[in-house]
């Protein structure tokens, strides 16, 4: 048998409910999840081949520009989007805002993103996600944060990157860091696992599992600053299992073409000729901001505990 398949299937040994949550995440692999604020944008995303849409009040670059409190998408918008498309509909809730989570679950959204892009409702705690029937995705910048979110019940992770900048550098940093931390964990002796758990502030049983299996127990997607087909392919090559695009599509000159091209590039991330084809004739990408030059209080990735 091929060595890469020596680890058990993800979800085996968990509850049935958790397995159906991770199962949906598995189905989204190799796809592109697109931020949308209206039913019309959702229709364009589906037409372009999105695997899911993410409903939110404003795209990250507008939140960044206009400021104010960013909250869950209005309920009527979520319903309108659900009526418009057949693909899964995700929606964002504020960190720690379990009532927004309960409302989105009552609306039967397919996935909830407890997201740092919205203004946090709780500056010390995240939502206890195990009690929900609907699966959650959360952002993570390092392995400790990733395992804390899985401990709370997240069925999918994503890099945080720096949303709304169109600059992929922070997503690259988060993905490389998590992969590096997993690699070094697999080299550690079992006697070291508890100290590593303490250092990472991560649940011990999840540290042990990652040490043995050499990968995260749930799919890990890339998000935050992805604006071009090449950005999407870069994240896939670095080991992301699918792509979230926020402002990158509906802030581009031609959203439909850009969306199609990013779908194409995510699927054929390993073929440079296809990537060249996907990248041609697109018009201007969104205007970007250098994410490394942002003042500390404008960095969204630091939200999360």
């Amino acid at each position: 048998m091929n060595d890469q398949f020596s680890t058990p299937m993800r979800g085996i040994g968990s509850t049935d409910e958790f397995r159906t949550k991770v199962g949906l995440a598995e189905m989204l692999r190799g796809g592109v999840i697109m931020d949308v604020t209206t039913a019309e944008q959702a229709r364009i995303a589906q037409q372009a081949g999105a695997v899911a849409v993410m409903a939110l009040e404003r795209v990250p670059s507008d939140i960044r520009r206009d400021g104010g409190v960013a909250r869950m998408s209005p309920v009527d918008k979520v319903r309108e989007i659900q009526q418009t498309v057949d693909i899964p509909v995700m929606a964002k809730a504020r960190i720690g805002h379990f009532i927004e989570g309960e409302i989105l679950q009552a609306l039967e959204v397919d996935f909830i993103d407890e997201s740092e892009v919205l203004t946090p409702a709780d500056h010390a705690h995240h939502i206890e996600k195990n009690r929900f029937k609907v699966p959650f995705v959360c952002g993570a910048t390092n392995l400790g944060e990733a395992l804390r979110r899985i401990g709370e019940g997240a069925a999918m992770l994503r890099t945080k990157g720096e949303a709304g900048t169109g600059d992929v550098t922070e997503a690259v940093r988060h993905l490389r860091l998590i992969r590096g931390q997993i690699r070094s964990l697999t080299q550690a002796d079992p006697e070291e696992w508890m100290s590593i758990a303490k250092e990472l502030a991560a649940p011990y049983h999840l540290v042990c599992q990652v040490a043995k299996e050499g990968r995260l127990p749930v799919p890990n997607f890339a998000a935050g600053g992805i604006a071009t087909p090449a950005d999407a392919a870069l994240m896939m090559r670095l080991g992301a299992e699918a792509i979230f695009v926020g402002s990158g599509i509906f802030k581009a000159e031609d959203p439909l073409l850009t969306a199609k091209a990013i779908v194409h590039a995510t699927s054929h991330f390993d073929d440079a000729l296809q990537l060249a084809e996907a990248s041609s004739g697109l018009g201007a990408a969104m205007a970007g901001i250098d994410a490394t030059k942002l003042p500390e209080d404008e960095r969204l990735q630091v939200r999360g505990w």
Partner: protein
Amino acid sequence: MTAICAGVLALQGSVEPHLRALSRAGVDPIELRRPDQLDQITHLVLPGGESTTLHHLLELHSLSSEIPQRVEAGDLALLGTCAGAILMGRECQESPPRWNLIDVEFQRNGYGRQVHSFIEPIEWIAGPGPGASEGIFIRAPRIGQLSPPVEVIATLGTEAVAVRQERCVACTFHPELTEDDRLHRWFLSL
């Protein structure tokens, strides 16, 4: 008889779990992304994923015409799970376009949205059966009216959840997410 060479359509979806299942079933599967790779294989798995996304990506490289042509010519056996099954079904009102390889209508999200996804035992009544397996249903499609030559191979209660027509097999649940590979083993024998 030609040697069995299997592939998994690797454009989007749960590709890796199918590669694992085929590998446990004793073959060394390829990841298929381009039409020219079809020459290398006798058996192709269409994984779960999003059927509209798969359709869009299949169209980009004319795989949506090449695959059904090879099946009709008798050169290729197909196993579709969930979204993959939908593509193989009878043409209907719903998008995406279907391939008419199995004379059954698959209704997308037939059990509802993700909060209605579930795991229940299914019963093999033909094909790899008899026996039961774990059926993982995720935003699963539902099988409509059936008539010969479509053969039911698995049921959930009284309802068909896996069907076969000649060398095409369609399954609305996800055997690839379990460690039970009897469907894959049987498929390779077709």
